[in-house]
């Protein structure tokens, strides 16, 4: 067609004006099935680029090939929400000279919008695009090869990057409508065999638990929600990843049916559970920044009340219109919670990076009630600790912590503690939970951290919250 933006990947890179030292960006909507990051960085390496800064919305196990590109000097800086697997392990042990910058999804959106995180060239995978770059996380054509649903984390990149390359595995006739990424923001369109393996979207942090302890925790958390004072017609809810926090939805549903209560919306990462409640009429609308499984991805394609939202409109602390400001209840998981209610979701208790900030900071800060669900111990690893290994979400924003040994309520929310007590729930002091953990496992020896900083944890407002040190 006239004015077609089609080109090969190499040509698109040349056309972008990319130079050594510049910042490239990616989204992680294909999660464990992503093929775009490795494909593009391989090509950039082949073309001889060096010293590039990689600004990803998140990185996971599948991005282990970046280790070689870091060693070869192709990638010298990373900013991301999370790191997992071999890449995380190597970085924790000092692979990079420059520390990795970790931001929440809302924090990344804000940083891109404000120019603090400037993107020179965005490489955005899409499951369909036309020749001008109108692109989606799904395809309506019969040749559809992949589906990831919402492109929420890619939208700030599309809007604010200097140059945008859409990479798709299904080129469709113009106009590809309704679209997520608008052709107005796109400079080049590249067609490849595959942008991602959709069967791996729900890999990684997301699992549907049959673990009896997770189910116990989920039931307790559901009771907290139901007796929180916020469980009334029109309430809104978000759940994070992690078996227990996802399972909570199942138990809340029962109570909603019983009491005839409906939610106005569910927010954030949308799962099949949420879609089911929406289709049953129990949740009015779904605001989806990231489709956590194929059911959710299909739903956003077919259901007009399942709305895609950009990371900025989802969770930015700097934008008054962001959806988290309207959120009542969020249920989140944690690797560690300390006696001051501070939460760590990023660094394992072996000192190795193994997680992601995600929307943790954003939703905890702006929701009316934030609930953390986590066991007292995972094996010999304590989850309720005197002090978190790394500070990710400040305790002042955390209201309730649900464990199998009792429910701790932030002293700043005495009215919540009172309501839960009146409902017959076992409300305990968080110091007692930490002491209970120590009585079972003993006092852990300190981790062998070195002086060098390998990671910097940003708060969503752009300030530095904590530093991650090299582990020996």
């Amino acid at each position: 067609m006239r004015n077609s933006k089609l080109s090969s990947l190499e040509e698109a890179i040349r056309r972008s004006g990319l130079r050594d030292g510049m910042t490239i960006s990616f989204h992680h909507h294909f999660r464990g099935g992503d093929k775009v990051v490795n494909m593009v960085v391989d090509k950039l390496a082949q073309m001889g680029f060096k010293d590039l800064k990689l600004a990803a919305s998140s990185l996971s196990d599948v991005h282990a090939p970046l280790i070689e590109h870091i060693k070869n000097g192709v990638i010298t800086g990373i900013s991301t929400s999370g790191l997992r697997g071999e890449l995380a392990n190597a970085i924790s042990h000092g692979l990079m000279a420059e520390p990795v910058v970790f931001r929440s999804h809302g924090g990344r959106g804000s940083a891109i919008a404000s120019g603090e995180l400037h993107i020179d060239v965005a490489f955005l995978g899409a499951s369909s695009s036309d020749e001008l770059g109108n692109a989606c996380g799904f395809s309506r054509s019969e040749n559809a090869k992949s589906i990831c649903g919402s492109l929420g984390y890619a939208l700030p990149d599309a809007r604010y990057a200097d140059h945008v390359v859409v990479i798709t595995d299904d080129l469709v006739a113009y106009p590809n409508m309704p679209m997520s990424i608008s052709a107005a923001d796109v400079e080049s369109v590249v067609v490849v065999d595959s942008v991602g393996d959709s069967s791996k979207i729900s890999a990684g942090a997301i699992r549907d638990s049959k673990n009896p302890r997770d189910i116990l925790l989920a039931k307790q958390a559901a009771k907290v929600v139901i007796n929180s004072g916020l469980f009334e017609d029109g309430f809104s809810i978000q759940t994070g990843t992690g078996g227990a926090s996802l399972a909570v939805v199942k138990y809340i549903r029962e109570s909603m049916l019983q009491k005839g209560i409906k939610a106005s919306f569910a927010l954030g990462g949308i799962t099949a559970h949420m879609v089911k409640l929406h289709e049953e009429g129990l949740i009015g609308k779904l605001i989806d920044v990231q489709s956590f499984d194929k059911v959710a991805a299909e739903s956003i394609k077919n259901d007009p009340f399942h709305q895609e939202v950009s990371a900025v409109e989802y969770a930015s602390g700097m934008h008054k219109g962001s959806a988290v400001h309207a959120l009542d209840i969020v249920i989140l998981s944690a690797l560690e919670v300390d006696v001051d209610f501070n939460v760590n979701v990023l660094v394992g208790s072996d000192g190795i990076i193994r997680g992601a900030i995600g929307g943790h900071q954003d939703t905890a800060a702006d929701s009316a009630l934030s609930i953390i669900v986590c066991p007292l111990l995972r094996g010999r690893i304590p989850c309720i600790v005197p002090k978190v290994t790394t500070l990710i979400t400040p305790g002042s924003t955390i209201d309730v912590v649900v464990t199998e040994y009792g429910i701790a309520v932030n002293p700043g929310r005495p009215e919540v503690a009172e309501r839960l007590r009146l409902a017959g729930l076992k409300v305990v002091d968080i110091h007692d939970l930490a002491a209970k953990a120590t009585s079972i496992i003993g006092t852990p020896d300190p981790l062998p951290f070195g002086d060098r900083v390998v990671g910097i944890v940003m708060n969503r407002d752009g300030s530095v919250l904590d530093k991650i040190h090299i582990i020996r």
Partner: protein
Amino acid sequence: MELKNAVAGTLESGDIMIQIGPAAQGLSIELDSSVEAQFGRQIRSLIAETLQGLGIEKAQVKAVDKGALDCTIRARVTAAAVRATGKDVWKD
């Protein structure tokens, strides 16, 4: 005390596998633990303590730990020792 080669425990998460065998002198403990940095020291001393409590001073121990709690470690070490010595500490 005469020792045979014996094993107790599994490689499941939350468990520890103890292999025990004869040694010419002393107690040697080779530990591979998923929580080495934080608990390796405590686990080694618990294994030694448990064996000494059973009167075993000379043994070679290989332990693969997947985050077991102290009660589990004590139970697995005791079971391995009972199998290695043929002396049932629960009955005798």
